Structure formats: structure tokens, C-alpha cells
């Protein structure tokens, strides 16, 4: 009976789930990269194992010098691994030059060809692949339409704004329908507002074309916003690999806890309460409770807790939650939330984010003594 049914847009991630069982788009096996200059050997990437699935939006996140760009350049073919194997769609491409790899890159500085028009820039890859001229024309036009630059085809790159140049760089890579698109901090040069708009735009384009995106960034909020999965890198190694929620909620290492968002770190000697629960006592009814699934050393325990998981109040909380007393050192009102910095009795500063909902505004002022509390499952025990 249905005459014209509205087409429902494909749910995000459909492509990824459909082909999850297939060969990974990119896989790195024990890949290392060392540079030697004179007597000094520097290790940029140290024995990385990584599988990036077909159609997923994958981010390599880390501070500068963590090896994320080197890792990407090894996937693109600009750098050869010192040891290890790079596979694209299961095929070993170690040693294959970049012009014979079926991946394309969006460069940090866009790297557009300054002497060519926007359309010529986008057509470059197709021409090299000897695609027929008529097909090139339609594919270039389609791609410029996708990035909303259809009316700028005859412009030179320098006549465009930063955001537009960015989209040309994206179109120039995507038009080749690569098996994976590599993006090296592509939004780094844009201002905040444009960057946020482009994040959503990139996500939309990725959903539409269904191509695997590998995104290199040092900006944790960017990675959290866009990625299906994130690999957090530090000193040439992957510290943690997981979904944005996994990485944010359950940081695997102290580095990840510190790098992603704001974390409060508490240390102390724990006493075992039950098989799954430990307690650090701070005296005077104050203690921190944490779940420890595995049998681990209870001395020198490091616990992290996210600022938004902590409740701040004047009354003494129940004994079955973590509770710590402190003095409010700083109150920063940010509209939707207020950030409090509370100094505990042992001189640790704990940051607390409180929603300014109708019943919870103006909880405490500078100098007030307050109780902080959070549930045991929000205390994450870090190794070492």
C-alpha cells in the first residue's frame, strides 16, 4: 500500500557493523620506527599492533612527539617501518611507495597545488589513474558538491578561506575512493567555531561515503566527538585502545586519565573490605572506596575520579560511598556548570564539576567547608 515511503537515513556505524567480520582495512603488526642521526637513535614508534576496521572512524590521539604522525605516514607509505608489517585490506604493502597504495591523505597544511584550480586539484589523482575524462568531470563535480564547493571549481586555492581549502583537500583525497582516508590534524589551522562545524561536517561526509577514516589529532575533544574508536598514544606506544566512552570512563593508565579530560588522582594504602572492594582511609570519617576486580597490591594504590562524578554538599554523605572533606579554594561559574576546586586535609586539590540545575546552583562559596562524595564504581584503580 505504501506509495512514497520516506527513506530513512542509514544509522551511523551501519557500514562498520556490516563488515566487521571482514578483513581489517588497515593492520599494523609489530611495527617499529627508529631514526638514527649519528650516534643517537630515537624510537618514534615502538612495536605497535593495530587493526582498523572497514568503514570506521578511527583516531590516533596523543601529545606531539607520541608517534601518531609517524604511524600515519607509515600507513601512507611516506615512511618505511624499521621492522614490522603494514597491511592494507590484508595485503602486505610494506615497501610499496605512496603512489601505489590505495590510501589517500589529507595534510595538516592542506598541501593544495597552488598553480591549479580547485577542480584541477581534485582531478589530479583521477588523471594519474588514467580515469576517462568524462568520468573525471562528473566525479569531480559530485565531490565538490559533497563538500559544498560546487561554485568554487574555477578558483585558485589562495582565493579560498582556510575552511574552504580544507574541504578542497578532503575532496581531492576522497574523489579517488580510497580504501582508507588518512587525516593528519586537518582542523589544526582553523579557529574554534569553524573547527567544531568541520568536525560535524567530517563525520557527515564519512557516513555518506562509508570510507575508513584514520584521524590523527592531539585534541582529545575532537577525537571523542568524532571517533568510533580511539588509540591513545604516548612515547611511541599505544596506551589504550577503545571507544570514546571506554577511554573516558575507564582510563587504562595514569597517562590516559591525565590526557583525556580532567582527572583527580588520589593515592594511598588500601584495606580490603570485600573480594571486590578496597578502602583508603583518610581519618575522621573520610575514605575512598574503589572496586578492584583482580587481586592486586593494596599499597600505593592510585585512584582516579572524574570531576563530574563527584557530588558536593554540606551534609555528611553515607558511609557506603567515597567521602572526603575539604575547603573550597576556587569557584568558576561557567553558565551551564560551575567548577569548584576543593583542597582536602592532606593538601590535594580535587576538581568538581556541578551542573547548575534548578535545585543545585550556588552549592558553596569560597572558603566553605564541604563534603565530596562519589560512588565506588566511579573510582578507577590505575596500575602503578
Amino acid at each position, binding site marked *: 500500500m505504501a506509495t512514497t515511503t520516506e527513506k530513512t537515513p542509514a544509522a551511523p556505524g551501519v557500514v562498520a557493523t556490516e563488515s566487521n567480520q571482514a578483513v581489517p582495512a588497515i593492520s599494523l603488526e609489530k611495527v617499529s620506527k627508529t631514526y638514527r642521526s649519528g650516534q643517537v637513535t630515537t624510537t618514534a614508534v615502538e612495536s605497535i599492533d593495530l587493526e582498523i576496521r572497514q568503514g570506521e572512524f578511527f583516531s590516533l590521539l596523543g601529545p606531539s612527539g607520541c608517534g601518531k604522525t609517524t604511524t600515519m605516514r607509515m600507513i*601512507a607509505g*611516506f615512511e618505511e617501518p624499521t621492522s614490522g608489517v603494514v597491511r592494507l585490506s590484508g595485503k602486505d604493502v610494506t615497501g610499496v*611507495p*605512496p*603512489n*601505489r597504495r590505495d590510501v*589517500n*591523505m589529507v*595534510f*595538516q*597544511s592542506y*598541501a*593544495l*597545488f*597552488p*598553480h591549479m584550480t580547485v577542480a584541477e586539484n581534485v582531478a*589530479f*589523482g583521477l588523471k*594519474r*589513474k588514467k580515469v576517462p575524462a568524462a568520468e573525471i568531470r562528473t566525479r569531480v563535480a559530485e565531490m565538490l558538491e559533497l563538500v559544498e564547493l560546487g561554485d568554487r571549481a574555477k578558483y*585558485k*586555492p*589562495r582565493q579560498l578561506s582556510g575552511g574552504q581549502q580544507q574541504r578542497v583537500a578532503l575532496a*581531492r*583525497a576522497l574523489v*579517488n575512493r580510497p580504501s582508507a582516508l588518512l587525516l593528519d590534524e586537518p582542523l589544526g589551522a582553523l579557529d574554534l567555531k569553524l573547527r567544531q562545524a568541520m568536525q560535524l561536517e567530517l563525520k557527515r561526509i564519512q557516513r555518506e561515503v562509508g570510507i575508513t577514516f584514520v584521524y590523527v589529532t592531539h585534541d582529545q575533544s575532537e577525537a571523542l566527538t568524532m571517533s568510533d574508536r580511539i588509540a591513545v598514544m604516548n612515547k611511541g606506544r599505544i596506551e589504550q585502545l577503545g571507544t570514546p566512552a571506554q577511554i573516558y570512563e575507564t582510563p587504562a593508565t595514569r597517562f590516559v586519565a591525565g590526557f583525556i579530560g580532567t582527572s583527580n588522582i588520589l593515592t594511598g594504602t588500601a584495606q580490603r573490605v570485600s573480594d571486590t572492594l578496597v578502602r583508603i582511609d583518610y581519618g575522621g570519617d573520610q575514605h575512598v572506596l574503589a572496586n578492584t576486580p583482580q587481586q592486586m597490591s593494596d599499597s600505593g594504590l592510585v585512584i582516579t575520579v572524574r570531576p563530574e562524578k563527584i557530588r558536593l554538599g554540606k551534609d555528611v554523605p553515607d558511609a557506603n560511598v567515597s567521602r572526603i572533606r575539604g575547603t573550597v579554594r576556587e569557584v568558576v561559574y561557567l553558565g551551564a556548570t560551575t567548577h569548584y576546586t576543593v583542597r582536602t586535609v592532606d593538601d590535594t586539590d580535587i576538581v568538581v564539576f556541578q551542573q547548575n540545575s534548578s535545585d543545585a546552583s550556588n552549592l558553596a562559596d569560597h572558603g566553605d567547608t564541604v563534603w565530596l562524595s562519589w560512588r565506588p564504581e566511579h573510582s578507577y584503580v590505575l596500575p602503578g
Partner: protein
Amino acid sequence: MTRLLNRAAPYLLALPAWIWLGLFFVVPIVGLLWMSLMTGNIIVGFQQTFNVGIYPEVITTYWEHILRSLGYGLAATLLCIAIGYPVAYWIAFHGGAHKSTYLLLLLLPFFVTQVLRTISWKFLLADDGLILGTLKAIHLLPQDARVLSTSIAVIFGLAYTFLPFMVLPIYAVLEQVDHRVVEAAYDLYASRFHAFVHVILPMSLPGVFAGVLLVFVPSSADYVTAWVLGGTHNTMIGNVIQSQYLVNNAYPTAAAITFVLMSVLLIGIFSYAKALGTERVMEVQAG
């Protein structure tokens, strides 16, 4: 008062340059034009007679020299591109930490005056000199082979003299080429050859353009090279001007030839710029 000064500042700053150009370019040019229209000789003196007829006269007498000069200049320019481009490319992309050393080496011979350098070429290329003598002794060349006093000697001499003027501007442009743009070409399936032809070469054209001007103009007007290496059959227009001025003391004739040469070169340069599309070339540089 200060506003007036602020507005006048750019003009005031440019003033020394204007005075310089006025004194040492405009005044001599006008003087040259004035001189070319005089008649007379060094003994009785020169009078202004507005003798316009001197121009067709020098053109009919010396057109061969002018054409030869342009031809040598062009050949030397092409030779400079052929030799200089690879040198500039190598220094810019493979010079590593020693780029400035290589550039210095390139310029080092030019601390010696052009006349001496050209004379040392004469020494090297003499019929029984170091090079030809050796080649003849091992019978790689016939006994009557010669290089000196041929057009080849002049063209190579010119190319040698003006080579740095080709290498430096090309190097300056290639040095500016963003290596990520070249990487982007490789990433988009270009071979090394295609990356060069479609990306590096077009981006370096402004440097070639500048180099052509810097080599073609002075080499067409050069007289030292032809004088030392060319012998009697390869005299260039510069040699004619020199001998008319210094040997024959025919100042009006020398001035008239100078003007003709200048006009020919200017017309040549403008049509070259138009044909190549200066604006398009400059656009690349700006981008």
C-alpha cells in the same frame, strides 16, 4: 603635521632611489639619445644636427651583429636552463645542511673578474691547449679540430659567465616549494616523473622566468666573451659598440646602436612576458 608626515613618509623613503635613478639612469639615457643625433668627429667636434638618419644607417649596417647577439644570447640562455635547473634542483632538494656551501661554491669563481675567467677558458680551450691538445694526442679529435674562434666557444663562454643568474632564482623558488605539496602528488598516485612535470616544474616557472631575463639580457649585450673566445667571425653587437666608441671615437654611431639594441631587447622581453603570461606566473609565486 604628523599626519602629513605619515602620509609623505613612503615617498620620502623612496626619494633617494628616485634621485639615484634620475641621476644615473634617466640623465645618461637622455644624454645618449642627444648624442646619437649629433654629427661630426673627435677632431672637429660634434654638433647637434638632429640626424635621425643615423638609425636606419646603423640598422642596415649592423643587423647581422644584432641578430647574432640575440641568437647567442638565446642559445646561452637555453644552455643555462639545461645546466642550471638540475643544479638548482639538486641543491634545493638534496643539499641537506650544506645548501649555503654549495651556493657559495657556485659563486666562488665569480670573485675573479670576468675578463680573467674568460681568458683562462681561452688557455684551456686553445688549439694545442690542455683539453684539445690531449684529445688530439690520443687521436680522439682530428688534428685540425678547434673550439676557439667558433660560435660554440662564445655560447658556452656566455653560458658559463651567466650561469649563477639562472641557478639562483630557480633555487630560490624551488627552496620555497612546500615538500608536503610534493608528497601530496605522490599520495595522489603521481610517479616521481609526474610529480616533477605537474607540480614541481610549474611551481618553479617564476624562477625560470626571472633567470631567463637575468641571463638573456646581459649575455646578448656582452662583449668580453666574444672578444676573448670568438675571434673575428663571431663579433657581437657589444663588440661593435665598444670599438665604435673607444677605437673609432664615433660617439653618435655607438649611441645609436646602443639605443637600437635596447629597443630590441625591451620588445623581446615584453613579448616574452606576454607570451608566458607574467600574471599567471606571478600568481603562482604569490600563492
